[in-house]
């Protein structure tokens, strides 16, 4: 965005700096003055909430790393030592663990908002793709973080998930050994996971910068999906959006604190309080709740398709379920962004949301009937939504008339 450079330093030091590194000018333009649609609803605060959680996770993670020992014989005890002996250790550890869940809860809302309001559509495709990249990095980070306490679920999650790569034809087995640094998950695996778990959040932070950059070129989408036409449609980012975002963050902290202080283990699994044992597999391996939808898709493919084995098929669908998100901007051809004005799109969207919850539920169940069949149906709908429904609906649907501008839509609202 340009044309809003109201930064006119009078202080000689500020002038001196501005001609060499215009960081103050940049900050004023992008953090204070940035024109933001005035009709953003609270679903739009989840971006700020996510940025906040990323900071919380990095801060708590860095201090946990001061006390954690990435060694297969000491890791479990060192986490327990953090909980018991380190000052505020129980709270910091619980915040980090619950924070991962909160991160995913918020990111699912954020993605869901983007899907409903068509925030991925031209000219915001790159913004959307960077978002999916962040999501993939988050999944990798969370998975490797879950391995670090070296409990039973940590160990077996690491075993099962790294085994996914063995499904790849030809290079599968060497790749598996490369990832694990051995013939099974062991100390080298733990060490590299710790290293990468520390690294990836900073990569995420870097991609977040790109994500915000890509946001600030076209500016925000908004609930009516009509582009900003004049300055009457916008408010400066500060103080209007900053205060709204801060309020949302404080409200979000309430359930966050609830879990940290009153139920820190409820989002985890009791089996992870058993030290890792390579000889005994827990009877029922489940990933953390935020991976359940994708885990359900992985397990739904329990049959061979032509020359593709069930194992490889599961991996293809698992990978595809995330990969498909990259193509959403081109799968949905509707010129109308906001779902509010798309009568045919809307029911399919809500069915998709319901289906996502259903997949979450199914991912936690044993692979028996009726769950197996339901998983297949839910998986089919997940892909159908993106690959069939979005393209077809966008062709046959007649959208409702759009308001001429954001200001007009706001006027209409306050009149009712």
């Amino acid at each position: 965005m340009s044309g809003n450079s109201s930064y006119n330093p009078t202080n000689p030091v500020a002038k001196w700096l501005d001609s060499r590194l215009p960081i103050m000018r940049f900050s004023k333009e992008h953090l204070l003055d940035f024109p933001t649609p005035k009709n953003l609803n609270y679903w739009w605060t989840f971006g700020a909430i996510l940025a906040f959680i990323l900071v919380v996770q990095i801060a708590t993670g860095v201090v946990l790393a001061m006390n954690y020992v990435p060694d297969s014989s000491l890791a479990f005890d060192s986490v327990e030592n953090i909980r018991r002996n380190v000052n505020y250790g129980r709270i910091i550890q619980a915040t980090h663990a619950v924070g991962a869940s909160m991160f995913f809860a918020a990111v699912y809302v954020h993605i869901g908002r983007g899907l409903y309001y068509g925030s991925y559509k031209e000219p915001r495709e790159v913004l959307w793709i960077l978002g999916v990249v962040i999501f993939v990095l988050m999944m990798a980070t969370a998975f490797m973080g879950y391995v670090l306490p070296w409990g039973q679920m940590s160990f077996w999650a690491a075993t099962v998930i790294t085994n996914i790569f063995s499904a790849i034809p030809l290079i599968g087995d060497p790749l598996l050994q490369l990832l694990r640094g051995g013939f099974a998950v062991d100390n080298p695996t733990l060490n590299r996971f710790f290293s990468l778990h520390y690294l990836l959040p900073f990569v995420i932070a870097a991609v977040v910068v790109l994500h915000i950059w890509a946001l600030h070129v076209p500016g925000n989408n908004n609930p009516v999906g009509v582009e900003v036409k004049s300055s009457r449609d916008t408010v400066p980012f500060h103080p209007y959006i900053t205060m709204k975002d801060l309020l949302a963050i404080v409200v979000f902290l309430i359930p966050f604190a609830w879990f940290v202080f009153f139920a820190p283990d409820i989002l985890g699994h009791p089996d992870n309080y058993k030290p890792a044992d390579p000889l005994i597999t827990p009877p029922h391996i489940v990933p953390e709740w935020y991976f359940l939808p994708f885990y359900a898709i992985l397990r739904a493919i329990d049959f061979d398709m032509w020359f593709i084995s069930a194992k490889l098929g599961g991996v293809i669908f698992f990978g595809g379920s995330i990969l498909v998100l990259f193509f959403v901007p081109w799968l949905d051809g509707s010129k109308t962004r906001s779902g509010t004005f798309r009568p045919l799109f809307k029911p399919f969207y809500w069915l998709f949301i319901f289906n996502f919850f259903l997949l979450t539920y199914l991912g936690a169940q044993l692979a028996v009937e009726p769950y197996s069949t339901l998983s297949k149906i839910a998986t089919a709908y997940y892909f159908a939504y993106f690959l069939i429904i979005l393209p077809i609906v966008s062709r046959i649907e007649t959208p409702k008339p759009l308001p001429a501008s954001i200001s007009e839509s706001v006027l209409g609202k306050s009149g009712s």
Partner: protein
Amino acid sequence: MNKMNRFFKSVLLAVGLGVSGSMLAAPAKAVVVIEAELQDWSFGGIFGRYDKNQLQRGFQVFQQSCAACHGAKQISFRNLSEEGGPAFSESQVKALAAEYTIIDPELEEGERPATPADNWPDPFPTIKDARAANNGAVPPDFSVLAKARGISQKFPAWALNYFTGYQEGGADYIYNLLVNFKDAPEGVDVLPGQYWNAYYGGTLAMASPLFDGMIDYEGDFPETVEQYALDVAAFMMWMAEPQLNSRKQMGFQVLVFLFVLTGLMIAVKRKLWSKVEH
């Protein structure tokens, strides 16, 4: 149109909830044959706190019955005198610690009496010894055992846990296990060295570790298996989560703070946005 949509949505939701609800009611797995009887723990829920006297009794049961085979390596003797725990006096703990021996290869004698700073010594020097003494089974360490166990619940009980903050599944599991050493049902062969447990729904390598009257309580608490089981389950929960009291206390302070800040933030945001039509 809008109405139709809303109707469509609610039908969808109702059908969905119905379907998933009926599925949730199906038992997840038939390992546990009898339902766990949930106990009214003093530390249950968000207001719950440990009962110091119960923890002291539980320690007695642990020390006199469990500790012969089960370790608790994460527990320090000093923990026993901490607030929010059994809170024995420091001199009691010092005397207690001195009864135990710590193997210390750096010393000439190779061992020394324990101090409050030491961790609870393992009952067996090696895993091999533990296995040899217990018919091939290694008695699990008790440090976090109460959090490594849980009970299976049906819908909607498990979903409500998120709102009630139910974190006592491990204590309930331990209690139910300890009071359900029964004769095996007919037709079940129990191998020598194995013992039937009706709650576990199978055989364990441990016989009932408790029997009525085995431990003398001060005061007039019933000296029954049920009471012992309750007390030791509470003690094991404390071992697994020693800072529960202070954590919940802090939780209230944090939540009150957040609610006040939320109220103020709402006022600030409203005031600010009152000038903007949105």
